[in-house]
């Protein structure tokens, strides 16, 4: 909430000196031409999510939240700052929940049309839940950075066309605050577009972009530039990736705070340093994790997953919880030693612990290090992996220190 206030001040030219603090004191949104570094650090908090969502559905464990300011393109006055937005390095693009469905977004953003019909988007998540709503355009401002005319996804806009049948995978409809648990999702992962060439050439896939004339929504192709975009890649500077920094969480905490830093090797505060680089395999979009002498491919790092999800109960010896099969509930906390390695990269040994989900989530804690669950055949290093680390996520097609993008590094 305080962050939101700071944002508004930062957007005001007259009060620039009051913003940023520390060494980065520029209010410049779009340049380094005057030699003053752009303020590239945005506070994030693992705080259980927006209060309105906690009231509806309880604490969101291991979610990193931040605020984002959106403006009608070109306007400095038609703006709104949305807080409680989930920081997600596992998706690409900004999605904001409409106030019509319990979110904060009330600002009317210009909608995108394809062949004279409004453009709608369906996004399906790994758990087969989905969100739906129109594509619109906004200037996106985070810290001192700005991306202009960014295609964004407005979720849960009840005045828009209803969810197409082919959007539903059978899972949960996430289009309300109670289910989504956030006022939006800020996808700052490894890619610039949320779909890419599969949505711009050939036959349009079902379950992604739709054009929505009065007769009903039908799947459509969308050019790369009109697809919903990772706003970081459209910043004028510091646009090759992000670093998520969170403190170690040795025991469960109600809240911890950290930073999202824009750019890798673009300023004095975002050097790659000695971090090990894990370039994404072009086939699996991941790297290899070795456990008990077995190599599992397709491992990935994702701040938007709220535990470390790996293998299965048989392989790990960790029983799943009887009431929540997405989580492990061992009798006692158990340590795992694994080795991560990307194709052509260096191996990196890693230790993490698995605790009992039921016992760890009884209180009002939001930052819980040892939450883990099953994920057949691979490893999903979610937010607990980020505790006590600086995790780099570079964007495909950009230039960044450390080798070929896209990569993760830590």
């Amino acid at each position, binding site marked *: 909430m305080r962050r939101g206030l700071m944002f508004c001040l930062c957007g005001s030219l007259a009060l620039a000196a009051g913003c940023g603090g520390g060494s980065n004191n520029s209010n410049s949104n779009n340049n380094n031409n005057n030699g003053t570094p752009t303020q590239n650090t945005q506070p994030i908090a693992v705080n259980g999510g927006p209060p309105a969502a906690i009231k509806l559905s*309880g604490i969101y464990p291991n979610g990193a939240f931040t605020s984002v300011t959106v403006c009608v393109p070109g306007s400095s006055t038609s703006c709104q700052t949305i807080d409680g937005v989930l920081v997600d390095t596992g998706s*690409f693009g900004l999605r904001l929940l409409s106030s019509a469905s319990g979110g904060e977004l009330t600002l009317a953003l210009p909608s995108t049309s394809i062949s004279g019909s409004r453009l709608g988007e369906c996004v399906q998540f*790994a758990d087969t839940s989905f969100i739906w709503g129109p594509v619109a355009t906004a200037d996106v401002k985070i810290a001192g950075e700005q991306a202009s005319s960014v295609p964004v996804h407005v979720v849960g806009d009840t005045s828009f066309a209803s969810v197409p049948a082919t959007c539903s995978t059978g899972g949960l409809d996430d289009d309300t605050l109670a289910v989504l648990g956030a006022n939006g999702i800020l996808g700052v992962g490894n890619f610039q577009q949320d779909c890419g060439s599969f949505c711009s050439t050939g036959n349009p896939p079902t379950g992604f972009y739709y054009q929505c004339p009065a007769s009903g929504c039908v799947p459509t192709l969308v050019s790369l530039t009109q697809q919903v975009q990772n706003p970081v890649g459209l910043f004028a500077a510091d646009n090759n990736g992000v670093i998520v920094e969170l403190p170690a969480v040795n025991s469960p905490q109600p809240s911890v705070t950290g930073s999202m830093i824009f750019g890798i090797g673009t300023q004095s505060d975002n050097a790659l340093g000695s971090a090990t680089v894990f370039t994404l395999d072009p086939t699996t979009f991941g790297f290899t994790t070795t456990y008990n002498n077995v190599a599992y491919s397709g491992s*990935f790092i994702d701040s938007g997953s709220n*535990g470390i999800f790996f293998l299965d109960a048989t392989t790990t010896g960790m029983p799943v919880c009887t009431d929540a099969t997405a989580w492990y509930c061992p009798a006692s906390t158990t340590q795992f030693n694994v080795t991560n390695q990307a194709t052509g990269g260096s191996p990196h040994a890693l230790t993490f612990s698995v605790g009992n989900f039921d016992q760890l989530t009884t209180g009002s804690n939001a930052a819980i290090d040892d939450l883990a669950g099953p994920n057949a055949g691979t490893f*999903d290093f979610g937010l607990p992996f980020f505790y006590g680390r600086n995790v780099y996520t570079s964007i495909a097609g950009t230039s960044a220190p450390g080798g070929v993008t896209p990569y993760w590094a830590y």
Partner: protein
Amino acid sequence: MRPTLSQILIGLLTVGAISLPAMAALGGDVSSVQEDQAHMKAALQIRTGQAYTVHELHQESGTVVKEFISPAGKVFAVSWSGPFIPDLRQLLGEYFDKFSQAAQTRAQRPGRTPLMIEQDGLVVQTGGHMRAFTGRAYLTDKLPEGVSTDAIR
């Protein structure tokens, strides 16, 4: 990729891309389904092993769907990987409703996790992230003798 898979698939024959009816829903009869490959717009590879046959469909959308077929001609497992989640209504067939009900009613805190359903012999597991999804579903009591679930991927 995994040792278990290669062990089980020893001696398999790659037939190559051919246009035969290929898709059958989970639990269905492979010979009874004629219409689905067109729906999937997919190139097909059939690999025949001793324990089972794999129909591998490379969808135009980039997602690879595999169907695991028992010697009795029944689909006992399906898996997928790629940029899109396949049409689960089609792929899970008569088990879709049971899956959907479980996916929508699972009890847990808000948050993003892979999906893990085990109910009455139906196992559905999904994971991954935007542009890189994975998943599988199988019927525990229909697995052919000696087949490890590690091979279903």
